[in-house]
């Protein structure tokens, strides 16, 4: 068992039961989280920062997280690691951020009805989603894959709800272009 970091977190937890749950979770996911973060960022120091952030987040949300089972907790840790790592990487892209701050048109005319029953087009959509720039992809995933509300995404990413809306619209516009042109 790696106690190196574990003891650092412990003072934030109150009861012995919480400490035990946290210790078990830490031991199970620490290395996987670090490896995931390293794979996304390709930067050891950044991966360590992400691990730190994930565990702080777990402790802050411990009432919710500790009430579910261990597999769900692990999934939460992995999901938080991917979100944080992608957010961190995308936040470095200042050029894209500037573009995002611009006003955007609506994506109301984005119509995917033609995909229904066309497996090939559906697979192409999945490929296009995977190819979205991270700055679009992170809020898009949170909304559509993780079923989060805009205010929750805003809180998670430290941006305004308005910015969340803009980024999701931009993601859709980008997807429309990619689907038209081919990913």
């Amino acid at each position: 068992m790696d106690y190196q970091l574990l003891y650092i977190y412990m003072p934030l937890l109150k009861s012995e039961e919480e400490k035990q749950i946290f210790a078990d979770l830490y031991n199970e996911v620490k290395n996987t989280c670090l490896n995931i973060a390293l794979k996304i960022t390709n930067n050891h120091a950044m991966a360590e920062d992400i691990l730190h952030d994930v565990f702080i987040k777990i402790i802050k949300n411990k009432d919710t997280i500790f009430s579910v089972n261990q597999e769900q907790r692990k999934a939460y840790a992995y999901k938080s690691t991917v979100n944080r790592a992608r957010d961190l990487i995308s936040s470095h892209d200042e050029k894209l951020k500037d573009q995002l701050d611009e006003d955007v048109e609506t994506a109301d005319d984005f119509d995917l009805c033609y995909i229904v029953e066309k497996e090939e087009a559906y697979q192409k959509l999945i490929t296009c989603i995977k190819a979205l720039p991270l700055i679009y992809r992170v809020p898009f995933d949170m909304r559509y894959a993780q079923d989060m509300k805009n205010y929750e995404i805003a809180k998670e990413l430290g941006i305004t709800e308005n910015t969340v809306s803009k980024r999701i619209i931009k993601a859709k516009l980008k997807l429309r272009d990619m689907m038209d042109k081919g990913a």
Partner: protein
Amino acid sequence: MDKQLRADITETILRRAATTAYEQEMAEFINSAEKAEPIITSKAHDARMRALFKREERKESLNKLYVIAKRAAIVVLISATMLFGALLTDGHIQATVRDTIVQWHERFTRFEFRGNGYEVGKSEWFPDFMPEGFMIDRIYEFYTGRLIFLEHDDGNYVIFGYEPAADIVIGVDNEFTEMEIISHFGVDYFVITPLPESEHRSQVIWQMEGYAFTLLSHLDSETLFQMALSVSS
């Protein structure tokens, strides 16, 4: 097809495709991460996190300290008013340094300030000079004064406070400290330096333009004095 229906279908497809893409990627990430070699975290990272968590813990303890300090201050003020006559005959040494009455008791020194006729409103004061790396961590507002916590990443902190001089009495433990009075442009600064090996903090206390000020820190008293000199509204 109805426009709203088309939009709903599009949203449903997007949701399904996004979920599939996300789950596929998560599975790939987890599979490859679980097979990867264990990563040893760096000592620098451990130290940085230790400092961070110490700070988190200290924030809580500072909150508690502040509450206790305020309670203690009220008790001291009430006691001082009731026992003032007795204190004068209680073997202490008293000196008046311009606007401040300083009483040296066996274990503590008491600073009582005279408002000196100043009508003070709500002024904001802050040191222009701060040692490198210090940032404002929190500010407690009173009716006419403030208590400001400045914090450094390395865990050091400085507490800067001020209130109208007529409202405040400050007591300083003098068992393990030395005090020096430095006059600068008509202001007397009481510079308190902890004795070597002592756990006490440096402190500077002064009165200026109707306000009583204090700076408190584990930094050396010379640095605190430089900060005190730079305080302006």
